[in-house]
């Protein structure tokens, strides 16, 4: 009987291991043929710009303890979280993008220039960024310590690769739109970034002063969406005329800013 149990335990573990290590080809491994016709510019694209404001007292930024890695501890820069980054009532790191209208009706060629994500001072720089489908995401390691880069997407394949100091940049692409993909370094668990992947170039990320600009917007009716990693999304309908410059501000309230902590507590109490 003991022999039988032993065989069963090993067999079960072997099956689990084989399933885990086989990595079946996911349906999202290849590029998606959307069947959309390519967008033809008439040089009448508009621009959407605005400011992401923050109403109220922002939550305190949390301390990051980098003591586990001397290279990180000795790195410069403030060692505070970047989730809710408010300067003079303006909110940074908000991903702003369009859905609907011409950006969903046509296909867009990705830029040949890569988008750079740097690991610098044991932080991801930038904290929030956007790329187009098939556009190269170039990942650098400017630190004197190894990192591992681990995006955990839902629609794209997951990968986890080590990047020692002094090694060549990693170049990756995503084949499916996804807003947004969390990226983490499991060696330094405070290192987190978010990558928005879209099928069109009409997106932006709010800067330190809360400003954003979306250029080259084809004329049409859209939903303008803002995404913040802890405060969620806001949406508004917007119409952009030919060569029009539109302004659209958004405001996040402090009551929402405090929600993530309490939400996480509630999540821990949810029954299976």
């Amino acid at each position, binding site marked *: *009987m*003991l*022999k039988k*149990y*032993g*065989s069963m*335990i*090993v067999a*079960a*573990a*072997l099956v*689990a*291991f084989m*399933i*885990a*290590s086989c*990595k079946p080809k996911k349906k999202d491994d290849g590029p998606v043929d959307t069947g959309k016709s390519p967008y033809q510019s008439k040089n009448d694209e508009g621009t959407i710009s605005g400011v992401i404001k923050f109403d109220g007292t922002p*939550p305190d930024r*949390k*301390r*990051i*303890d980098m003591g*586990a*890695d*001397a*290279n*990180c501890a000795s790195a410069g820069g403030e060692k505070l*979280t970047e989730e809710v980054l408010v300067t003079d009532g303006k909110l940074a790191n908000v991903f702003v993008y369009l859905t609907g209208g011409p950006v969903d009706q046509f296909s867009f060629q990705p830029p040949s220039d890569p988008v750079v994500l740097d690991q610098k001072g044991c932080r991801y720089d930038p904290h929030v960024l956007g790329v187009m489908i098939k556009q190269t995401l170039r990942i650098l390691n400017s630190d004197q*310590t*190894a990192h*591992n880069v*681990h995006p*955990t997407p839902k629609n794209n394949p*997951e990968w*986890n*690769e*080590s990047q*020692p100091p002094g090694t060549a940049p990693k170049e990756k692409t995503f084949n499916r739109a996804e807003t947004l993909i969390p990226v983490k370094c*499991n*060696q*330094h*668990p*405070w290192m987190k970034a978010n990558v928005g992947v879209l099928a069109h170039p009409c997106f932006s990320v709010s800067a330190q002063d809360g400003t954003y600009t979306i250029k080259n917007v084809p004329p049409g009716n859209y939903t303008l969406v803002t995404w913040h990693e802890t405060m969620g999304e806001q949406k508004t309908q917007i119409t952009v005329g030919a060569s029009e410059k539109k302004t659209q501000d958004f405001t996040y309230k402090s009551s929402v800013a405090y929600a*993530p*902590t309490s939400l*996480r*507590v509630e*999540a*821990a*109490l*949810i*029954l*299976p």
Partner: protein
Amino acid sequence: MLKSESSIENFPTRGLHRFALAVASLTLVLLVVGGLVTSNEAGDSVPDWPLSFGRWLISSDYFVANIRYEYSHRFIAGMVGFSTFILAVWAWRSDSRAWMRKLGWLAFAAVVAQALLGGARVLTGEAGKPFIAVPHALLAQSFFGTIVAIAVFTSRSWWEQSRVKFSAVDARTARLTVYSVGAVLVQLVLGAGFRHRAFGIIPHIIGAVIVAAVLLWTAMTVVARHKGERSLRRPAITAIALLIVQLCLGVGAYLARLAAAGDAQPLEPMISLTVAHLTVGALLLADLIVLMLRCYGSLAPERAEKTFAAPRAEGVVV
């Protein structure tokens, strides 16, 4: 009560018993480091398996931050696996009891399976991790329990039971100890499920109430019925003490986890409280296994022969 205080000085599995104790101690260290891996979110810090960054031994440059926990876990796991192999061979060659010889190989099979599950945990995507991590945690505790059982079966007190008459433990009390061991194992799974975010805290809290009730009932029954039997009374009282410590640690660990919500990374005291909670859980399981095996070993002889392995009883299945 012991009718004779004489003891066997040179019982036949003396060396094997000491080695089993060493393997059990090393396994406890492995459990602690495994807890540190989970609590520090270090499970994916070494992306490859079975090698680590393409090597068996990594350089000190790599041994920083979360890699310290994950690599130490792998290294100690290798030591435990090798030690268990030696234990199985030793038992196979030296123990006269057929079921004990098989138990050694069962332990080795468990540690091999555990290594495969650990590898699967590393190679699995984020979504599937709870489905690997929770069985990994369950098998870890079960393996630890198996090694503790081997230590009991090879101990002097186990051999003494064959020639010294205890006051017979009734079958009901013995059964209670089985329920306690089962309840603690289920509770360990519920705790692992919460830590690995397979589900929320409520099942673990309900489990804690049930385990506390079953365990107190068991321990108090043993103490009440076998006041003079030190080998039974001691693990029963230890179980109550560990239960109190465990409940305090559990509340503390959960409150620390709530307070840490929104932190940039896992920080103290959440890490230490969680790992201590896991460790005391393992010690509680080990203590109850000792109590259970001693109870069954002390069953009235006719009952013991039917239900459980007595020393030198070849071919009896545990």
